[in-house]
């Protein structure tokens, strides 16, 4: 990557601009029933950082731990999901705090004003037997210290700004289309102008036209309130469209991370390479290769690199040791013994 070239996705990387720092986060589903203990390591040692104003895309196939990761980051977890190790530190209003060190009251104060979360299946976030207005009041009103008339005026102004008819407030959710509900949910998540928005599959189940619309709106809202965002979706096309940086997850681990353009153009990890190669391109009618095998069982993950049973490049060291996530270019990290060999391991990796 040439340092001087102007980037379409400019990324502020300065340390003090960092809003979220996740380090070595491990979140496991742990159950103990009738003497049988089970452990599913859905998130196993993930580290990432998100800067102010940045959209961080999280991609990966189903069951790779994307949703578990963002749930853990938002501290929206409940048993059997437990945080086993690592920290999640947010910096809001100039103070950096570990979200797991906050009391319930502090957590409640932080939510919506600083951190909001568009849940997976967000179409169903609205209670089917309450009017949309009541959902706004239930979820957002307690977080803005404003009397009710001012709050409702603010909600209406916010809806108008993102080109939603304030009449939706008087509707029941079933009276709105899927795209409308999705938009209302995004409005609900952004009405308090949070510093950080976590969006888990915000456009899944929408057709591409509505999807583009909703994504455009999400992006516009994010720009307007200058918040940071983690966007989870398995749809690489969406990431290419919206994200500044993307992280690719595989089997509970981050395997590659970097500016969207670099990851898509110069993928280092074999899994990312396959993912990108599977995208359709106009004029390209060669058959797409699918990966052999299935994603690993996270209750019993393979040793070493978790991708090695499906990896065409796998070597001996891949079967024994997990590769570290290391810098391969500026702001571009990958975890692979073969394509991103750490300097000290370069020799054994090459010899095998």
């Amino acid at each position, binding site marked *: 990557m040439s340092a001087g070239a102007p980037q379409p996705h400019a990324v502020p990387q300065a340390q003090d601009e960092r809003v979220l720092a996740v380090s070595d986060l491990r979140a496991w589903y742990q159950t103990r029933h009738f003497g049988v203990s089970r452990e599913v390591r859905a998130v196993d040692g993930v580290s990432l950082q998100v800067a102010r104003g940045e959209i961080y895309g999280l991609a990966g196939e189903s069951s790779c731990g994307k949703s578990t990761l963002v749930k853990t980051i938002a501290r929206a977890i*409940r048993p059997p999901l437990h945080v086993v190790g690592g920290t999640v530190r947010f910096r809001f209003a100039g103070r950096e705090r570990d979200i797991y060190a906050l009391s319930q009251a502090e957590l*409640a104060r932080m*939510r919506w004003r600083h951190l909001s979360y568009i*849940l997976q299946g967000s179409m169903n976030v*609205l209670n*089917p*037997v309450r009017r949309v207005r009541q959902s706004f009041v*239930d979820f957002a009103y*307690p977080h803005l210290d404003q009397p009710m008339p001012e709050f409702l005026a603010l909600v209406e102004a916010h809806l108008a700004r993102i080109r939603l008819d304030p009449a939706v407030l008087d509707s*029941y959710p079933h009276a709105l289309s899927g795209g409308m509900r999705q938009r209302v949910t995004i409005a609900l998540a952004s009405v308090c102008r949070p510093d950080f928005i976590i969006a888990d599959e915000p456009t899944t189940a929408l057709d591409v036209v509505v999807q583009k619309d909703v994504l455009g709106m999400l992006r516009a809202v994010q720009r307007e309130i200058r918040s940071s965002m983690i966007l989870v979706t398995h749809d690489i096309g969406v990431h290419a469209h919206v994200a500044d940086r993307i992280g690719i997850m595989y089997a509970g681990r981050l395997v590659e991370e970097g500016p969207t353009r670099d990851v898509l153009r110069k993928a280092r990890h074999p899994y990312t390479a396959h993912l990108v190669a599977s995208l359709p391109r106009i004029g390209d009618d060669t058959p797409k290769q699918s990966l052999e095998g299935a994603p690993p069982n996270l209750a019993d993950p393979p040793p070493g690199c978790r991708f090695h049973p499906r990896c065409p490049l796998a070597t001996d060291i891949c079967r024994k040791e997990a590769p570290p996530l290391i810098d391969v270019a500026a702001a571009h990290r990958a975890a692979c013994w073969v394509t991103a060999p750490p300097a000290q391991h370069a020799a054994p990796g090459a010899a095998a």
Partner: protein
Amino acid sequence: MLTVLRDLFRYRFEFRLGAILTGCIVAFAALSFVSPYPPQDQFVVPPDLPPSSPYWFGTTSRGQEVFWQLSFAIRNTMLFGFAVAILSRLIAVAVGLWSGYRGGLADRVLMSLNDTFIVIPLFPLLVLFYFVLRDNMSWPLLALAMASLGWAYDARLIRAVALSLKTREFTQQGVFSGMRASEIVTQEHLPYVLPIVFYTTMNNMTWSIGLEVTLSVLGFTNIDTPTVGVMIYWANQHTALVAGIWWWIAFPVLFVVILFIGLFLLAVAMNEYIDPRSRLARMGGATP
């Protein structure tokens, strides 16, 4: 709320009919306040007269007017049914929603209690109550006893819905936004289960009034307070049907049936206001 009732009355045939039927019964029960005779007095009119001009519903073998007796009876029976239904709904909704939402230990404790009430045979227990309390057995006491026995099935029903609601996205959103458990249960889940509560209210009233009539007919309640069951009890004591005094039994039964139909229609129509989805289903059903 008043405009809703007005619209329901204007546009919903069921609501109109239900309101008229229930209204007639309530008005009839209200007449008891202007009764010329106290309900316990006997031989105030000539006995055994069939329905005719001065005595519209006839007179009983005890020298009472069926009309005024019945207005007392309907009033007491209706109050009894409402009291049992409201008290037992409070318990059922509280136990069902809380146990379903909380889960864990609270759920296990509440549901063991719940299942205990389900397996207890009610009728022998109520008869036992009567034999223990005898003359102290008033209708409020009986209502309390029935209310505390009549919530268990419906609490299980409501808990089943609450279990499903607990995993819905809007519940998670509520938790995320820092709503307390009590707020989630009352603001998000309660409106959802209200239609069920309405229907079970009807069931419960039918059940409690039916059981009260059964107990009264057998003489296991305070037979000095006129209720529909007590009227039938006295009619049986005087072998009214054998003697051909059919109006002594026919009118109480007829009025209870009208009350049930009226309340049922009201509940059905109200449900459409409370549950927007059934309004939608109705629209779908109406279009050809």
